[in-house]
């Protein structure tokens, strides 16, 4: 194999960081990045699903007939998503209430399916695990950064703790949907400018 495991892992953190480089998984990133707490919860859920589904798809890649591979990927991904959903309901119910529909929506989120199709179906188990972990952490990081900006400026808090003094006027625009688009656009712009050197 040309690339080492470390390379597979690291590329997810910068070179192929999901929302910015691959521009995948934007729907949840816009909705869930209102507060840092939600973003971290969502990030952990995605990491879990991505790593597990990548490993399983890689393990089964020789058995899965190519004509029905997408259906097989969806079954694998959906299974792990429901596992996450049930565990969240059982142990972190308030977080489950906040994330709501976006947990089941990980199924149709392009990241796990995209990685299964583009990577895990063609590579070994270890490489796929590294790829899933890298991209998952990359996704969680982007969510955390975006949500930090939105929560700090839009609400004046970070993880629920007040950042600015009482005189701070929250920039409400940031926690609304348009704020998410503008913020994401600016981050994409910065990332592209940095990558162009």
């Amino acid at each position, binding site marked *: 194999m040309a690339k080492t495991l470390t390379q597979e892992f690291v590329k997810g953190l910068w070179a192929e960081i999901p929302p910015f480089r691959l521009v995948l998984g934007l729907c949840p990133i816009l909705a869930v990045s209102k507060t840092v707490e939600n973003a971290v919860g969502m990030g952990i859920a995605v990491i879990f699903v991505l790593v597990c589904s990548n490993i399983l798809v890689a393990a*089964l890649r020789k058995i*899965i*007939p190519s*004509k029905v591979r997408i259906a*097989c990927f969806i*079954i694998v991904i959906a299974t792990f998503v429901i*596992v996450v959903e049930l565990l969240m309901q*059982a142990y972190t119910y308030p977080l489950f209430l906040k994330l709501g529909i976006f947990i089941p929506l990980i199924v149709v989120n392009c990241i796990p399916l995209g990685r299964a199709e583009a990577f895990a179906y063609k590579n070994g188990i270890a490489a796929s695990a590294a790829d899933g972990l890298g991209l998952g952490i990359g996704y969680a990081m982007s969510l955390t950064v975006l949500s930090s900006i939105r929560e700090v400026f839009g609400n004046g808090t970070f993880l629920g703790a007040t950042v600015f003094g009482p005189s701070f006027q929250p920039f409400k625009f940031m926690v609304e949907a348009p704020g998410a688009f503008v913020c994401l656009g600016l981050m994409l712009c910065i990332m592209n400018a940095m990558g162009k050197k």
Partner: protein
Amino acid sequence: MREMIKMVVVLTVLCSFSGGLLAALRDGTKERIEVQQLEFIKGPAIRKILEGASNDPIKDRFKIKIGETEKTFFVGLFDGKANTVVYEASGKGFGGDIGMMIGVNLADDKIAGVGVTTHSETPGIGAKAQTDPKFAKQFKGLMLTEEVKVKADGGKIDAMSGATVTSKGVTAAVTEAGKFYKEIKPQLAEKAKSFQK
């Protein structure tokens, strides 16, 4: 032909495996999820109604089977007497069903308090039924055995401005709960006594 068979076999095995895993997990987490739902959805309303009770009403609960359905009752201990019971009721609101918790004093049939748990009313208008303590307070002390109506219908409840349908939904739920209460009161009193310490 062989490929066809392989496709069918792989998909069938994958699906049944996934189904089995999820069923097992669901069974394993069912009880915990039920407790979590009680705690976070109905819990706040129950605790509010039974404020000052000396026991944990969520723990001290019992079920009575009425016809086909099973209803859960939460007991509140005041001055060492298990005289207040909270249970669920629902009414038709503007945007869908309004789920409520209704508390009743078994000694004098007076309403101990009401609280909205789930609803899909308009935010800022009908949704105030859940958040505005002034609206809920009006129910306290009314007779549960009598019909509860809004002022426009000749009753005692001040409807929330702009949310007549929601207000009527709430009063209808309370009235319904009252009818039901009359039917099962003897049973209720007996069961509640067993929680007395």
